[in-house]
């Protein structure tokens, strides 16, 4: 089991030290889809960057099972936007993780092509990101994360800048790819419906300093389709999370 134990992160700012995260504790089971929701500014992105190894924690532990070597990074991040390299084609972007692991050109292109096809962009392999719509670019970002042999995928509001319809379609596609290639996913969002639709569990964070306030198991069976959003238990869970978040947002507004 992967676990985050008593994780803390302090920043130095002009106005003195800021505690971004305080005693964050949770675990992620193998092949589990965990969503994290929280008020804006609660340190969600900081948490993800700590797990990704892009930031150093002030104290606490991040324990992941499985190898963490240069040839196999433990995590792959999917960014909100602008995560793709504008100077690489779709295929090279998707193959980037494998390239960094030293996989030869032919082999990595073979793997990458398969995933580009899975996200429905087979006819765009040689296009550059600027030639794609925002939704297509996020598909590329997701394909890139899945192609890398990382144990855990970290997603930072990947659909945050999409229109509502595209977002729904991509959520379903993400679940489909995840079902076929089961990995741990830690998914950050401020969209409660999205968290409930995607996750096995939803962790609700407090306002800054961020910590996990509540953990909610989602007992909805998979595969899920959009109709589950109409179910009474879905709506009830949504109301529950919304109430917690509302409290936290009010707290942070003072």
């Amino acid at each position, binding site marked *: 089991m992967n676990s985050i134990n008593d994780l803390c992160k302090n920043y130095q700012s002009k106005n003195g030290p800021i505690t971004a995260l305080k005693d964050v504790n949770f675990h992620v089971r193998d092949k589990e889809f965990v969503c994290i929701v929280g008020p804006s500014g609660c340190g969600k992105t900081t948490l993800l960057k700590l797990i990704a190894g*892009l930031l150093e924690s002030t104290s606490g532990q991040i324990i992941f099972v499985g190898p963490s070597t240069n040839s196999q990074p433990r995590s*792959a*991040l999917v*960014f909100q936007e602008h995560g793709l390299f504008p*100077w*690489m084609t779709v295929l090279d972007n998707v193959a980037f993780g494998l*390239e*960094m692991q030293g996989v030869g050109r032919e082999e990595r292109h073979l793997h990458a092509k398969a995933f580009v096809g899975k996200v429905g962009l087979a006819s765009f392999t040689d296009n550059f990101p600027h*030639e794609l719509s925002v939704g297509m670019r996020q598909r590329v970002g997701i394909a890139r994360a899945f192609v890398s042999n990382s144990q855990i995928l970290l997603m930072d509001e990947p659909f945050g800048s999409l229109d509502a319809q595209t977002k729904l379609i991509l959520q379903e596609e993400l679940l489909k790819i995840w079902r076929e290639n089961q990995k741990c996913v830690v998914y950050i969002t401020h969209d409660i419906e999205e968290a409930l639709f995607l996750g096995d569990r939803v962790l609700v964070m407090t306002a800054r300093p961020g910590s996990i306030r509540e953990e909610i198991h989602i007992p909805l069976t998979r595969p899920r389709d959009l109709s589950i959003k109409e179910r009474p238990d879905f709506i009830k869970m949504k109301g529950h999370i919304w109430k917690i978040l509302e409290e936290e947002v009010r707290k942070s507004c003072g």
Partner: protein
Amino acid sequence: MKENHHLFGFMREGWLTVLIIFFIAIAWELGVSMGWLSSLFFPPPSFIATTFKKLILNHKLVDHTGITLWRVFLGLVLGGIPGLILGLILGWSPRLYRLINPFVAATHPIPKIAILPLVMIIFGIGESSKVVVIALTAFFPLLLNTAAGVQQISPIHFEVAKNYGANLTKIFTRIIFPGSLPLILTGLRLSLNLALLVSIAVELVSAQEGLGAMIWLAWQTLRTEELYASLIMTALLGILFNFFLQRLAVYLVPWKTEQRI
């Protein structure tokens, strides 16, 4: 698909340019034959054209142009490549940038032609001092634009690379170099044009061969038609350089079709 401005735009506006040049030439020709313009200062375009053709056929203009181009090339290689490499490093390391930048800021604005006498004291009056001045000229635009090119790469791209386990070599070859390439090409264009300008300036004051020397000799012997022919050749070189660099940009930075370098 967006319109490819600099190719089709160039052709559309190109016709207009040719038309304007044509009309100016006719007015000029007419002005000289009517006696409104002195043919000593403004030899008729037809005479300049035949002189140009003659100087091409007897290889005089070709040889001088070749010598100037060789100097531009040497200067660009000896000055531009170090500028590019140092620019990549300075753009990548904010600490080195802070350390080196004061020296760059102090030496960059000095007109390089003004230090030719100093360079000649050090390198002698031969070919090498000319090339040194041209190289110094080509050094700065590539250095400054490359450093700026690296600095404008989004931090997210470095984070993605780090997250996927990129080592330093990969960060340079896959992120820093391609990410700064559009501005490197801007630097190259500036370096190339300035190298041509300074080559001719150096040749004007201290050379027996090259376009600048030819211009100077034509002025001293009052052969204004040869002077104009050399100037036309210089202008053609400028046009050629820029056309070549535009094509290079289309080829090297296909992800920036809007790039106007």
